[in-house]
């Protein structure tokens, strides 16, 4: 019993230390934002790698999700004979709900472990120390551009994902003979308010920020060779997915509570 209490105590202590480290990490990132030099070149590079590089999988995922949601919604609506609402309901659930979350999940599989592994390998091979001795702040050079790029690219990708999902949904509606493609599109677009779009984009921005900063945090604290890099990559991947789900629940609860 004592031992269990002891190990819980240790576990808690480690988590508190981790949170403390993360806060210091984020303070360093924030400092990198308003101090010169700024690494625009790295920033655009990461926008390209995270953003443009993710477009194909985001499109494919968007198509699948759009088709799936349309079919499921249709089956549900048919039991009530409310088929006409298909476009509106599908559009809303993509823009407010599934779109941002699925996009974040999918993009994080590309971005999260790769960023953690890359930074971890740089740490292990002393490249980060080399930067420091050259007077380069590794936060400003490596972390801030990544987080800024991720925070901007996630909402952009969620938009791409949403468009792909709604278009596929419309196609499915037409093919299933429920409604014509233009009617579906018209209905879903008129059902979505600017508030819904803003809400979806806000969530994506938060996910982008969380995913990339978590990945960078795990990457930068790597110690102990290849095993450390491996551990960091898998910890980062798990943490990213969990944090997306948890923050999504918190944000959704908050927005419905107020």
């Amino acid at each position: 019993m004592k031992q269990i209490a002891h190990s819980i105590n240790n576990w808690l202590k480690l988590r508190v230390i981790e949170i403390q480290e993360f806060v210091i990490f984020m303070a360093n990132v924030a400092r990198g934002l308003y101090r010169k030099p700024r690494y625009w070149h790295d920033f655009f590079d990461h926008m390209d790698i995270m953003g443009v590089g993710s477009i194909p999988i985001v499109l494919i995922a968007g198509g699948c999700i759009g088709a799936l949601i349309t079919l499921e919604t249709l089956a549900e609506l048919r039991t009530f004979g409310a088929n006409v609402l298909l476009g509106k309901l599908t559009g809303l659930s993509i823009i407010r709900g599934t779109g941002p979350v699925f996009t974040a999940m999918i993009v994080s599989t590309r971005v999260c472990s790769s960023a953690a592994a890359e930074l971890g390998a740089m740490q292990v091979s002393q490249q980060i120390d080399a930067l420091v001795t050259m007077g380069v702040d590794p936060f400003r050079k490596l972390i801030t551009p990544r987080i800024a790029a991720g925070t901007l690219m996630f909402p952009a990708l969620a938009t791409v994902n949403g468009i792909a999902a709604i278009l596929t949904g419309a196609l499915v509606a037409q093919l299933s003979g429920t409604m014509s493609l233009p009617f579906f599109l018209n209905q879903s677009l008129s059902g979505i308010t600017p508030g819904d779009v803003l809400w979806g984009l806000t969530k994506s921005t938060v996910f982008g920020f969380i995913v990339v900063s978590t990945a960078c945090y795990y990457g930068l604290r790597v110690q102990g060779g290849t095993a450390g890099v491996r551990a960091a990559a898998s910890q980062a991947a798990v943490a990213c997915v969990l944090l997306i789900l948890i923050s999504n629940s918190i944000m959704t609860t908050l927005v419905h509570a107020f």
Partner: protein
Amino acid sequence: MISLKNINFFSDDAQHILKNITFDIPDAKVTAIIGASGSGKTTLLRIIAGLYEPTSGEIWIDGQNLATLPKTKQQVRSKMAIVFQHGALFDSLTVWENVAFPLYEQGTMPLSKVREEAEKLLEMVDLHGVADLSIDQCSGGMQMRIAIARALASYPEVILYDEPSSGLDPIARGLICDLIQKQQIQQRMTSVLVTHQLSAAFQISNHFIFLYEGEIIFEGTADELMEAKDPYIQRFIQPPSRSYRTTDFVPL
């Protein structure tokens, strides 16, 4: 001059890695830090370079106590460059981009001239026609020389070498030693050479610090080192017994 006074360093897991380290690094000379694997040489170098904070003790550079001037610290340290044990080259960049990196960062040189300067530095370390290779296309000896070129690119006054010749063949090792010596003579650079290869150290240095389990057990010249009474040092500097060879030794 760099002076270390009573430097102690404890690792995160509370091991006493450096014990009361006190010595001076004279200007424009090569100081060799020797000792067995795990004796704390790299740790000491990282403390000098500012990558680790010593647990206690002081580092004075040109009469300034580093601990008392947090802001200007960067400035003093920017005159220092370090060549890491395994090069620590940026593997996402090409050879010339690695060498050019400090030049870009300093931003004092027009971008059009940077490549030219990087190639000049590569020539200096006897590398020709490799500017556009990626780092993993280079051999260990080449990587070491690229790392030296990168360190020289920031025009340091002090350069710290961590085992620059370990794992290299005797010819490549000789090349690196010549290079260090050339820098020291031509640029009057202060060099600190960490190594466990005595032959390299004897070739280019006459100021030796001997570390044993985190403690300095000897400081002095090459001759003094050869005559040291400490049995551990004697064992370290004795060349390996070659008696098995004497039978096929043919005098000329």
